[in-house]
């Protein structure tokens, strides 16, 4: 059975300060799968993720050519098109960074923040969504009695799970993960792997990882980048 393509990139070229980081990258990513992006350091893996939610636009002296299309509500949208607002895109495409980046706010406010930005969500619903997401990342039991304490006081693993909870609160259709377990211990990394396997039922996941054992455990397909070019693509059974 043909898989539905969720993300399609065409001739994607990206340069920073005049230096090419991605060259003619054309790839398709299937809906409801975990795709691992692997490759040596500096091969453009993290940059590739930034092109999928247009976050590179916050970095000065960057240029991008090519096209990225994503399938939302049954049809493909050019995410760089003028009629597609960047804030809407980023609410549909969640991102978790390599280093946990909680905002200097309370635990509750960190997770609720995307909903507050979006607006129009009653406080009660917000509270239940926060609890749901914190339970999803198995953090609720650890923080339920100190939701209004600073998120910066959490351990590294807890902070990363908090960031995943925060990325999930808007129920994104695509989740971009840039080495989310690299700063975590074995147990915390395993917990996040289990979570990702659950999440792929509801969203498409792109995971940058250096750990090939992790990739073989959870990924449905693997894309390898080298010097900004697609070298190979493989699918696991």
């Amino acid at each position, binding site marked *: 059975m043909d898989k539905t393509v969720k993300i399609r990139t065409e001739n994607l070229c990206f340069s920073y300060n005049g230096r090419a980081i991605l060259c003619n990258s054309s790839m398709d990513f299937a809906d409801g799968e975990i795709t691992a992006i692997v490759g040596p350091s500096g091969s453009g893996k993290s940059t590739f993720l930034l092109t999928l*939610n247009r976050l590179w636009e916050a970095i000065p002296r960057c240029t991008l050519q090519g096209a990225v299309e994503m399938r939302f509500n049954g049809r493909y949208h050019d995410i760089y098109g003028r009629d597609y607002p960047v804030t809407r895109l*980023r609410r549909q495409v969640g991102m978790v960074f390599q280093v946990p980046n909680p905002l200097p706010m*309370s635990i509750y406010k960190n997770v609720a923040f995307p909903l507050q930005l979006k607006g129009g969500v009653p406080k009660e619903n917000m509270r239940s969504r926060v609890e749901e997401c914190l339970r999803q990342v198995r953090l609720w039991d650890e923080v339920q009695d100190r939701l209004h304490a600073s998120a910066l006081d959490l351990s590294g693993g807890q902070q990363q799970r908090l960031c995943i909870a925060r990325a999930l609160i808007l129920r994104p259709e695509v989740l971009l993960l840039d080495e989310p377990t690299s700063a975590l211990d074995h147990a915390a990394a395993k917990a996040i792997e289990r979570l990702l396997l659950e999440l792929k039922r509801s969203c498409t996941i792109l995971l940058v990882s250096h750990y090939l054992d992790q990739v073989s455990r959870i990924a449905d397909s693997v894309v390898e980048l080298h010097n900004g070019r697609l070298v190979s693509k493989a699918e696991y059974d």
Partner: protein
Amino acid sequence: MRVLEQAVVHFSRLCGIILLGAVLTVIGYLFVHGWSSLGLSLIFGATPPLDALLMKRHVFNGLFPAVAGTLSLVALAICWAVPMGMAAGIYLAEYAGPKIKAILNLFFDIMAGLPSIVVGLFGFAVAVFLNRRFSGAIHPCLLISSMALAFLVLPYITRTTQMALEGLPLSARMTALSLGASRLQNIVRVLVPQSLSGIVSGIILAIGRCAEDTAVIMLTGVVASTGVPRSLLSHYEALPFYIYYISAQYTNSEELASGYGAAIILLCICLVLFLLAFAIRKRISYHALYRA
């Protein structure tokens, strides 16, 4: 190499101690000479304090009108300067292109270096222009002084706001954007609250400058004896001018001591305003970042 490092450490420590010593010497000197004059009578003269505070009776031989004038002046100048300065700083840090930023940075640096007497002269010229062009009721007054002072301190607030925002790491800048924040939401809800400590430093500098500057107000509305300012268009008294006036014109040691007393009161007012600025910063940070 180790000896050089030790020398640098000792020299730095010595400089710190000298600086602290200088500040303590100035404060100590003021207290030694002004302590005897401190008391309610220095501020309210022969007028009962409550009557003076409720504006029931005038204070003729006390510093109350100068204290009221200074507080009004600083509050007004900060009211003009903070929104404008912060807005300009945000524009420079977040929106301005490289060329415009370079030009405006140069402009604000030049502005920061303007001698206050020049700004005072400009304020005076504006007052004269308004008087001739629009109404004879407009003359050097509290409003003109506060605007001239705001112009004087604007670059401090602008540049510290800009520096504080530009000093935030890229990761802090990208977090809220990745969560679907618009650029404005990112600035208002994340970047400014995180930069408040730097911004407040600029505001504190500005408060200090507004409270102490004499050259600007001498040309734009301050007088030696006029009572509590009744409106924005009235003359007013101010502590720095009183200190200048009394130290130049004193006829006996009691008057000179009252000048030192006025300087102590000015220092205390600055301290209270600084603490107020810190408290407001803490409150805003808490509301922006922690309140659910």
